[in-house]
């Protein structure tokens, strides 16, 4: 899931703390929200099948082009796609797994760092910071 999420959220390999945020999100979601453990397993299985190898063993560029080829980066699904009988697994990944992984990553400290915040909800800091523009 980290190899897949890295392509989705940054388009580069993730640093160790960033990868940790993905692991934390996936572990938390799988443990607490019914259905997500199965979704993540399906996602990993699909990626390995499409890659014909362990997905995480592919270099980043190959992973990205594989995802584009199979439209796995596109969570905007048209109604007619729901009616088609094939690619049901890919559809589940696009509709459920992709927004979940992107949202989980951007809800983590990495997401707040992306908008220039060193402190963010749940990280205590300097009380006076809120009175001025962010440095």
């Amino acid at each position, binding site marked *: 899931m980290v190899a897949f999420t890295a*392509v*989705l*959220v*940054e*388009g*580069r390999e993730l640093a160790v703390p960033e990868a940790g945020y993905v692991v934390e999100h996936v572990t*938390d979601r799988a443990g*607490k929200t019914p259905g997500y453990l199965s979704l993540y397993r399906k996602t990993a299985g699909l990626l390995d099948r499409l890659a014909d190898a362990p997905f995480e063993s592919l270099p980043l560029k190959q992973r*990205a082009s594989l995802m584009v080829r199979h439209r796995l*980066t*596109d*969570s*905007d699904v048209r109604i007619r796609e729901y009616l088609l009988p094939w690619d049901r697994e890919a559809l589940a990944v696009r509709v459920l797994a*992709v*927004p*979940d992984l*992107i*949202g*989980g*990553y*951007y*809800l*983590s400290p990495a*997401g*707040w760092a*992306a*908008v*220039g*915040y060193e*402190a*963010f*909800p*749940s*990280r*205590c*800091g*300097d*009380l*006076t*910071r*809120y*009175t*001025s*523009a*962010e440095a």
Partner: protein
Amino acid sequence: MEAAPDEVRETEVCIIGAGAAGGIMALELARRGIRVVVLESGPRHDLALRGGYSRRFARGENPWLSPLAGIDRYTTGGSVGYRLEWNRARGVGGSTLHWEGTTLRLRADDFRMRTLHGVAEDWPISYEEIEPYFGRAERALGVAGTPDDPWASARSTAFPLPPFPLSFSDGFFAGACRKLDIALHHVPQARNSVAYGGRSPCHACGTCHVCPTGAKASTDLTHIPQAIATGHADIVTEATALRLEADGSSQVRSVVYARADRRERRLSARIFVVAAGGVETARLLLLSASPAYPRGLGNRSGLIGRYFTSHPMIDVTGRVAERVYPYRIGFSTAMSSQFAAPRDRGRRGAFLLEFQNSAGPLPGQIAPASGAWGQALGPRVRAEFGRTLGIRIYAEQLPDAANTVTLNSGVTDYFGNPVPHITYGIGAYERAALKEAEQVAARILATLGAEDIRSGPLGYASHQLGTHRMGSDPASSVVDANLRAHDVPNLYLVGGGTFVTVSSSPPTLTIAALAIRTAEHIAEVYRGQHTARAAPRAGAPAALAP
């Protein structure tokens, strides 16, 4: 001390609920040497655990949910489904665990709605009578503020702590309000702007629903430990009151309670105080029906559970060109009471405007909705984030007998008791206030050059009020001005349920002030009783006669 649940079988005063009202009363009584046992349905949430709670909250979880499956079950009806999940907390501290900490006083006019506006009822007490208790409540909770609200009623004491400075985004609102001749002022906060009461100053953690530092006042930190330290108070946690038992002389003799093992225990007391919140207090009395009180304990008026009232809320937002840097603190620092001030409230309610420091989508919401991915995603989120300003409206609601808390016998809780059924809706009075408030908020945002100005859905505050209201007439109220039940002289009902009308102000400071006042009354009655026993005198309350 923290008592093992089966150790205590008898006490002088039993308080049910260790929240805002119950926690305060425990201290006020115990410091006067009166023996108190507090039964609290939820656990003690140690301060040391709250860093983890805070991180869970930031991920969208509610860490205050009860561990016992089904204990918080309820059902809803009415035109607006009032939900409880995020709107109450079970545990030592009660709703002060998750409240925002806004500590506005009611205004003098708020106590006289019938006299001044011809609607609802007047309170049986006046602002002047409760004013000293507001000051004591502010000192006990540690309220940070400054008297810059032009419409606040007169105060005899200063705020104990300096105010929180206005935020960066408040600067935008202040400019617009000046142009529109709307006065913007500080929000009084029961939150430490500097160290106070042995608690640290606020560290801007941004998760005030869970304060991980203890800077926000909650009675598990501000009152219960002091009550226990007197040596006169015990607190029994994870002990849920199931019913109160009255005898033939209209006195409550015992409370039946249970823990996770569902085994029933009894605790006897001379005086009972129910402080379980507007929903659970009403429910407990309805569950305590007996041949002497077939409609519920203390419910000869039939009003227990009626007039359930809250504060309807709407957020109005607009998108501005500048970055406004939201989500750096979890509370608001500026507001306007201009429309809660003296005005005609006969046909539409008062309302408050709260200028939000946290509005608009989070990075974790912008990113998945953007459709972007890879290297394009970060810049897209950066461009979108922090350009929304928001104004929250709190409107006044009139008490309406159709809004109720009743028992739903078709659904039971963890202990097999019928769950509360909440029927809630709003009428033309509230809709008129909300409509006017939305127009004012939109005007402020338009003055700021905001685009895409829109109103969010109708919501409601975590304020559960009016379900056992006070009054002088036993036919139209449940408790008297001292919060003593008209029908059951050794029973006191405290908390937001006692409110006759609700203004547009958050209720907690008033709940705290009334709790201090009632504790003082009980102490006087109790002392009177002891004196009466030593040397009987006329006028000793019959309720407490030996």
